[in-house]
């Protein structure tokens, strides 16, 4: 397949000799307009890849922080269509930063797979991470997404053994997202050395870049991961930053945006200086 923004971004990071920062934010949290400001501000804060969570009522793989972030967004009327609008808005000011949508299958299935892939591509989406579509269900959305020119980013986990790995890597593209713990988002963090060994095991089997996520909270932890992987993925702390800056009625404030972007700058700083 042709180069995507994701391929180009990781090639550039290799040139620079550094790891990247992948930032996850929940689409439409705390509301659509503030979410637009957050997403639009991420590239300037030093984020290399933007991951936007597509809110779902039943996020089975997410911890409490991202669950309530999704609920906040849904309460404010967020929909999959509006998540695509967030991406369109970003593309008015940024045409280089890769955007990956992450979430669960049902809202996409409800939208209609073909219509969704067409609209996502048109909006400027580069890749998809769909938590509840393992390789056993590849004919469902993975293969059509690849045909539509989108990257299909697969999760590998500590339970992904040598027997399982070929199935996981089979149709993977863009990068591989190594989930460093068995568990949900926002749970405890993994030992960087164990992560490094897992990344090496993956690298022996694929040329794709390896991003590592789950349990990374601080610039130091991000830097630890940046020394052993091609990118660090950070998510829960951004959702927490939004949560901590809501007003008394639970509505979003400008401080939500400022806090997320300031955190992104710190994390980007950690990642960028990790190998120097």
């Amino acid at each position, binding site marked *: 397949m042709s180069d995507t923004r994701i391929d180009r971004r990781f090639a550039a990071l290799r040139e620079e000799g550094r790891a990247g920062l992948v930032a996850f934010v929940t689409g439409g949290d705390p509301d659509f307009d503030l979410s637009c400001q957050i997403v639009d501000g991420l590239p300037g804060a030093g984020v290399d890849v933007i991951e936007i969570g597509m809110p779902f009522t*039943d996020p089975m*793989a997410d911890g409490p922080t991202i669950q309530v972030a999704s609920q906040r967004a849904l309460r404010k009327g967020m929909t999959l269509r509006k998540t695509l609008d967030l991406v369109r808005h970003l593309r008015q000011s940024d045409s280089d930063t890769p955007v990956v949508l992450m979430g669960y299958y049902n809202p996409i299935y*409800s*939208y209609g797979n073909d219509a969704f892939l067409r609209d996502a591509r048109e909006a400027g989406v580069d890749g998809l991470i769909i938590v*509840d579509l393992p390789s056993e269900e590849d004919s469902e959305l993975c293969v059509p997404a690849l045909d539509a020119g989108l990257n299909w980013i697969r999760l590998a986990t500590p339970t992904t053994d040598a027997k399982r790995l070929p199935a*996981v890597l089979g149709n993977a593209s863009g990068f591989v997202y190594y989930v460093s713990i068995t568990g949900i988002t926002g749970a405890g963090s993994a030992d960087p050395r164990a992560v490094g060994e897992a990344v090496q095991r993956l690298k022996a089997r694929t040329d794709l870049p390896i991003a590592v996520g789950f349990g990374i909270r601080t610039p130091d932890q991000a830097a630890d991961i940046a020394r052993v992987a091609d990118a660090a993925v950070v998510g829960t702390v951004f959702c927490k930053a939004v949560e901590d800056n809501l007003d008394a009625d639970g509505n979003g404030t400008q401080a939500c945006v400022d806090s997320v972007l300031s955190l992104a700058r710190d994390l980007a700083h950690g990642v960028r200086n990790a190998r120097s």
Partner: protein
Amino acid sequence: MESVNTYRAGPDEEGHFGMFGGRYVAETLMPIILDLEQAWKDAKNDPSFQAEIDHWAKHYIGRPSPLYYAERMTEHLGGAKVYFKRDELNHTGAHKINNTVGQILLAKRMGKKRIIAETGAGQHGVATATVCAKVGLPCIIYMGAKDIERQAPNVFRMKLLGAEVVPVTSGSHTLKDAMNEALRDWVTNVESTFYIIGTVGGPHPYPELVRVFQSVIGREAKEQMLEAEGRLPDTLVACIGGGSNAMGLFHPFLDDKDVNIYGVEAAGFGVDTDKHAASIAGGRPGVLHGMRTYLLQDDDGQIIEPHSISAGLDYPGIGPEHAWLADVGRVNYVAATDDEALEAFQLCTRLEGIIPALEPAHALAHVMKIAPDLPRDHLICMNMCGRGDKDVFAVAEALGVKL
């Protein structure tokens, strides 16, 4: 109706019943799902596994459950002859234990050290805590905080049985959220833990294995009806939340083409309102909890919280095999409202001296609709899948009685 040679061949290798079913789970769970599938294949072909289940069924559950001719109900309705399959007489008071016995024995075969389960009304939670007590394994039950309030007696029973009951305060605090939370636990403790799912839902192979464990209901009913009447029943009726008691009764009869089959969903305030739990009548296909099936959902594919007076039917989806049986037209899916179930609950109690659970009261409500217009030699077999002791508080409240 789609023409097929058999309705009993599913699922296929990938766990599909037509377009329904499948394995829509996080990658972390895939290796354990595949292990479970292998263990299940080995177990179901191992005569000693079935022998062990049979032993428990006879000596612990109290099977076979009777097939009972409901004489005064029949007279009252003035038409078809009504039989109840008395699975409410099982140990723990419902059909749920048929399944938890099978799964705990499977968990032991796999060497698992820790059991988790979700529960709505608490019947599956009690049945799981019961078998865990019997084999001495730690048991964690996820239950929506709202359901914990509604079902205090069952919560206490589970605790007495040694289970830890974890209140779920995510999402809408009910059954679907309890299932989400159980899946989160499983993802976290995947190596040590066996997840005992309570219905014919979830990722493959659960819908199949739960069906097999529950099919004892239909196998017995078939034999007992032949003994009582010298022929098969004309009509089967069972209530449906996820659909395990119904699948257990229906499956052995699916290829008996002359047997009419009705699955009764919970219509809550009515399927034309936004307060019901009838996913076939009021939902459309989607993907949740590892399966494709009919789901209550909005235009954006967000899951809608169901409503039923019966906590056991209060689920926004339905087992994938039911979804398929609806699409191919083998089973008729109908619905009964809260009020109709309450009426059936009271009638059954007074006419037969049997307090039914609110779940089978929905099935009985449908029997009350069809029996009067059927001839006297028409045989109806309804699954009385649970007893109503757990529901007396909810019923008192609905009837405006202060206890």
